[in-house]
């Protein structure tokens, strides 16, 4: 009898013996991140001037998304422009077909915004309420079997603002010469003002964590 109890308890234990991820993010802004990546072989000191278009390019994976408003373009572009100026670069006009090559800016800044809808499902079993593991959920868009239990589907929208520094010097393989990428990424939830504030904060953070962008003779 005791042995049976022991085996039963071990079996039950083995069921629970999967990882537990307690607590975690509570608020929308807990998911905000600033991501940067740069070309290690780039020499940022050689760069002096830049140009930046006057609008943000939008991408979305969701055909049903309402077309985005360009009302916030100016504020986002301002944050990016001011950060580059603070690093010691000078803003010049966009090059046109008539601009001679030696008057091109050293690099061009592009700002794009992505809005993607992600779908997830979780299984809402009767024992969700007392077992802390089974209350979890996971991403599984391609799960091939038909679930036997009720499945709850939810969607969330993520957004990224991607800033790229593209050198006007040609690469040998004709690919875009991206010197630096800064991304503000997070959940696209909340009021416009809330989202905009978080975008600006993460874009600033992208520059804070890129000290190599600062020109040596910036303070004169």
């Amino acid at each position, binding site marked *: 009898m*005791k042995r049976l*109890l*022991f085996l039963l*308890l*071990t079996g039950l*234990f083995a069921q*629970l*013996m999967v*990882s*537990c*991820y*307690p*607590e*975690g*993010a509570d608020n929308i802004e*807990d*998911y*905000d*991140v*600033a*991501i*940067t*990546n740069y070309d290690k072989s780039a020499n940022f000191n050689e760069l002096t001037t830049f140009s930046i278009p006057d609008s943000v390019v939008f991408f979305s994976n969701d055909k049903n998304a309402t077309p985005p408003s360009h009302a916030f373009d100016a504020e986002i572009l301002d944050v990016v422009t001011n950060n580059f100026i603070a690093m010691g670069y000078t803003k010049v006009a966009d090059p046109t077909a008539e601009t001679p090559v030696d008057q091109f800016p050293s690099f061009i800044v592009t700002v794009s915004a992505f809005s993607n809808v992600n779908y997830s499902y979780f299984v809402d079993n009767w024992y969700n309420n007392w077992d802390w593991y089974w209350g979890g959920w996971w991403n599984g868009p391609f799960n091939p079997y038909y679930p036997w239990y009720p499945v709850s589907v939810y969607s969330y929208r*993520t957004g990224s603002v991607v800033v790229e520094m593209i050198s006007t010097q040609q690469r040998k393989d004709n690919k875009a010469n991206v010197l630096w990428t800064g991304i503000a*990424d*997070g959940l696209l939830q909340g009021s416009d003002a809330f989202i905009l504030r978080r975008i600006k904060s993460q874009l600033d*953070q992208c520059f804070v*964590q*890129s000290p190599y962008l600062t020109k040596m003779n910036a303070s004169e």
Partner: protein
Amino acid sequence: MKKLFIIAICLFGLSPFLKAQMLNLNYQISLPMNQVKDFTDNASFRGFDLEYHHFLGEHFSVGAVIGWNVYYQDKKHTSGNFTFSGNDNIYTITGNQYRYINTVPMLAVGRYYFTDNTTAVRPFFGVGIGSSWTEKHLEVGQFSSTISRWQFAVAPELGMYIPVNDQFGFNAGVRYNYATKAANGRIPEIQSFTFNIGVIFMSAR
């Protein structure tokens, strides 16, 4: 796993010599040390273990332990360098990092009891050897990174159990856990102190 199976068979083979069996369920509080502390610098209040001991005479017992501990830390606004699977580019990501270490030690334990079974409190010293499964998990923004491995584990312990009657008692003890590092150091060397407190169900034959 095979080692544990062989030990289990040996234990059952010893049945004729056994005087008493003990089933023990403990709640555990664990303090991380060294490399575990570097990753998650918080005590774990989410831990328990299940133990089974067979007495060989009055002063020795052999048994098995299976336990589970979760260490968690919320590192607000931290920067780290990460690579994404598929390429070598290094990305610096700044955000809130949620860090978790789950460990499941599975040990064969031998104990020496300092007193015989007539005393009110029975202190013991023991050593456990076996394997520990550890998973290190980090979440930042929309991204997460998980790695898990089996490690060789050793755990000396000191404790006492307090029999209330022939079938029930209390257990209290402290165990030092050590497990070797794995995956080229990506799974850290586990060093921690675990405080056990729990109940015992006994049967005397």
